């Protein structure tokens, strides 16, 4: 049933020119400085007004292993991964033969001349380029050649595709904006590539760029930086983290923003504390200590770190302490594939820790939602007094995405049910874990509150509604039942699922997170090629709101599309829905570690029709 079990045949490339509708794959060696070249290509397309996306497929390594960067231009705004490569830039001798072997007929290959790839296949279009010879001409200093060699392919690609050179130069100068000399040298390398292509290569492939006006006013940002901005504007004050791919850049971006915008220029004093902890256990311990004290505190991690956080998460849940935890998912289990993407932590996160635990999990599907749901996470954590998870993934978190500029938050911070000394005076005290309002959410005081009755004892052991140690059966049961009531309350507080597309007929699709963009493309494929006009509901949180059952009820068959082996969200939905609705769900799973592509989803859904 899963895609990897299907023999998916690549469809023949369509006839005619591929105008703003193709994908370029650049195969290089990790650590060779190709990232700058790839970003220049990406930005040139973006500045030409063409919808574009870039995906970095990199190894768990600093230098020397193969890495691929895919740039996709799509006039139809498809910014998910495209399975097929139309133009390959083969710079890595180690992988070049395999890279060429994987292409479909009529694809084009720009390659380093000494590799002699043209002998390998007759059905491809080859463009040999003597990179070493060209770089020697523009870069007299031998030791710098390695750094600018990759910029030459930007010029070759640009000449073949018809890039707007003014935009390319702008992109180069932006990339090296702090280093005039480097900018000049790199631009010279682009120009040398361009000149070589003009003089020596005859255009034979069908990929072509034409200026559009589809990106005006938009930004390019990765999901981790977007989430960091969400934390910044949520007013985070305590950040504790431990480095782990692919989450590190979230806290690193955040700390950069905090240093820039949250330090008083006159006194040099900070309105935040950021600590690199000794491990993930400690990171979450710090966040809980800070949340208990009343601060907005966060950490970010990935699978292995999340495993370590299980114990503290249980404490946060049971002692009812606000915390925000970002999990930028990568491929597990264990160390897994640290630099590949998955949605494999869904069921683990939903019930993280031993005993009866259930957690609020937010599911951003776009860069903008990484920003918005980060802010919501802090509000929800304090409103519900519990750890709140934000599940992103490597694809969403580390790759570059186009987005509309983020709006400034309209709502003030929601700080939840906190009693002041004045409240305590008026009320004559309080019981920390009593359900006063019937929503399962108790009241708390912050340590330091100046009132003789403000103090309470926080513990992970059994407690009564006053926070006192208790092993009484009734106290235990009342407490965990109230926690479940609180979880039910969360259903109405979390961001609701969105009907992204209204369909016609019996079919519905449910997806979440980074599956969103490829799914939009897949829906078009299903409609245009298979006649299936499916509706699409995008989940944005767990627990599920009533809109999800309503969507399933309105369709006879509902495909749950996700990037894990076991159909984890499918399972959570089946547990939550009434049996007659649960029976309508079908699991669609793609999980090879690469960002899911539309065609894989489409093929699987088509296969399920049989």
């Amino acid at each position: 049933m899963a895609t990897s079990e299907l023999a998916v045949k690549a469809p023949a490339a369509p006839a005619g020119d591929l105008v703003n509708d193709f994908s370029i794959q650049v195969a290089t060696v990790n650590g060779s400085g190709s990232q700058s070249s790839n970003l220049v290509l990406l930005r040139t397309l973006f500045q030409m007004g063409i919808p574009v996306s870039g995906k970095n497929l990199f190894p768990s390594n600093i230098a020397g292993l193969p890495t691929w960067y895919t740039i996709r231009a799509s006039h139809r705004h498809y910014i998910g991964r495209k399975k097929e490569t139309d133009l390959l830039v083969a710079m890595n001798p180690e992988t070049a033969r395999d890279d060429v072997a994987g292409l479909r007929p009529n694809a084009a290959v720009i390659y380093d001349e000494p590799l002699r790839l043209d002998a390998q296949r007759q059905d491809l279009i080859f463009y040999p380029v003597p990179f070493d010879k060209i770089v020697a001409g523009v870069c007299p200093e031998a030791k710098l050649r390695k750094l600018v060699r990759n910029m030459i392919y930007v010029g070759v690609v640009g000449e073949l595709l018809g890039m707007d050179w003014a935009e390319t130069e702008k992109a180069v100068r932006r990339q090296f904006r702090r280093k005039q000399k480097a900018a000049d040298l790199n631009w010279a390398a682009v120009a040398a590539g361009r000149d070589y292509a003009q003089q020596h290569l005859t255009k034979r492939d069908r990929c072509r760029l034409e200026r559009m006006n589809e990106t005006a006013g938009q930004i390019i940002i990765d999901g981790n930086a977007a989430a960091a901005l969400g934390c910044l504007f949520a007013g985070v004050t305590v950040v504790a983290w431990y480095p782990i791919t692919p989450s590190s850049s979230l806290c690193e971006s955040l700390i950069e923003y905090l240093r820039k915008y949250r330090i008083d220029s006159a006194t040099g004093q900070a309105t935040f504390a950021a600590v690199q902890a000794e491990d993930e256990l400690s990171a979450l311990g710090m966040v809980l200590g800070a949340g208990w004290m009343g601060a907005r505190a966060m950490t970010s991690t990935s699978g292995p770190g999340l495993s370590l956080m299980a114990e503290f998460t249980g404490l946060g849940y049971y002692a009812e302490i606000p915390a925000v935890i970002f999990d930028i998912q990568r491929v597990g289990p264990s160390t897994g594939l640290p630099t590949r993407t998955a949605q494999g932590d869904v069921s683990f996160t939903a019930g993280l820790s031993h005993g009866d635990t259930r957690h609020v999990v937010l599911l951003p599907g776009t860069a903008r939602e990484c920003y918005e749901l980060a802010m919501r996470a802090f509000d929800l954590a304090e409103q519900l007094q519990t750890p709140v998870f934000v599940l992103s993934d490597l694809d969403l978190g580390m790759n570059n995405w186009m987005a509309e500029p983020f709006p400034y938050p309209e709502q003030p911070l929601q700080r939840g049910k906190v009693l002041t000394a004045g409240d305590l005076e008026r009320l004559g005290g309080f019981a920390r874990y009593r359900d006063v309002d019937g929503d399962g959410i108790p009241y708390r005081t912050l340590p330091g509150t100046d009132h003789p009755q403000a103090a309470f004892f926080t513990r992970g052991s059994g407690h009564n509604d006053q926070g006192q140690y208790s092993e009484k059966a009734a106290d235990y049961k009342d407490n965990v039942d109230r926690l479940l009531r609180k979880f039910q309350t969360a259903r109405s507080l979390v961001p609701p699922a969105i009907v992204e597309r209204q369909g016609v007929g019996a079919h519905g699709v449910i997806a979440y997170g980074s599956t969103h963009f490829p799914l939009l493309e897949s829906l078009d494929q299903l409609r245009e090629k298979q006649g299936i006009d499916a509706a699409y509901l995008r989940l944005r949180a767990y627990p599920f709101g009533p809109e999800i059952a309503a969507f399933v009820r309105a369709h006879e068959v509902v495909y749950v599309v996700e990037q894990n082996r076991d159909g984890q969200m499918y399972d959570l939905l089946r547990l939550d829905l009434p049996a007659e609705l649960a029976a309508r769900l079908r699991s669609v799973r793609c999980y090879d570690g690469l960002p899911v592509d539309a065609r894989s989803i489409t093929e699987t859904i088509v296969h399920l029709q049989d």
Partner: protein
Amino acid sequence: MATIPAEIKRNRIGLATSDYKGGKSTLCAGCGHNAISERIIDACYELGLDPHRIIKLSGIGCSSKSPAYFLNRSFGFNAVHGRMPSVATGALLANHTMRAIGVSGDGDTVSIGMGQFVHLMRRNLPMVYIIEDNGVYGLTKGQFSATADLGSKLKTGVVNELPPVDTCALAILCGATFVARSFSGDKRQLSAVLKAALAHRGMAMLDVISPCVTFNDHEGSTKSYQYVKEHEEALQDVDFVPVFDDIHVDYDPGTTTEIQLHDGSRLRLRKLERDFDPQNRKGALSLLTSYHAQGEVLTGVFYINPASPDFTGQLNLVPEPLATLPMDRVRPPQTVLDEIMSSLR
């Protein structure tokens, strides 16, 4: 606040000892930990500390139950096993104006909590960290901990064949700025050390030998009352003079070392046998090593460095608690978002 009869003694902020009491202890009668709780109550009362300005934290184990037995008007946090240091760190970052007392045990600190302990010392977090050290796991009924002495024997006859970790030497090595060892049965010394630790701004690590009356107070145990009484050697007489007390001199100035603490109060150490300088890290480490080799339990203040910056100071935080900063100080204005957005175009 309850009305207090006039005859009851009050401290400088008008509170009685009863305002510092905790719940009834559920530890074994005669447990050294109860005596330590008493000393904490006395020290906070005598120093006139505001209970609501104190947080008391612990991990898991017999020792870690004790924060429920002192300072009822302080905010308590009984965390998970071995991981109180991280909770304390987060709490103090969120509000660095609070005073923190952490209570741990030898299992909680030196076995499961070793990683967090080491980093807590290294960060010089401003708090008092007490190890109620009995060399044994009490709550799980008497297994050895990593501070059990080589050759010490369990009731079951099992002999410990691994060397102990010296928490004081470790704390000094890692960067703690106030390191002492005392004995739960030494009321006078423990009180003075606790008060000085509370006045210190930085990591004050106290290893307090606290015999387990149930599992480790028999002949053959090196952490029994009997053994400690026979083998304890006090490094110095410890006297603490709070900043608000009149300065008076008990000791012959020729044989005392006086250290001024962060808040202006003074710690006086009367030298006994040797010329010991508690501000010399190397000397402290060498002394601890040599005494250990003799099977002696050396007590006193081994190391103190009142000048070293603590962790919250190093982060250069605003004077107010981060936890309660108003929105306009933590959410940057629209212009900042606009600036960032235009940089991403």
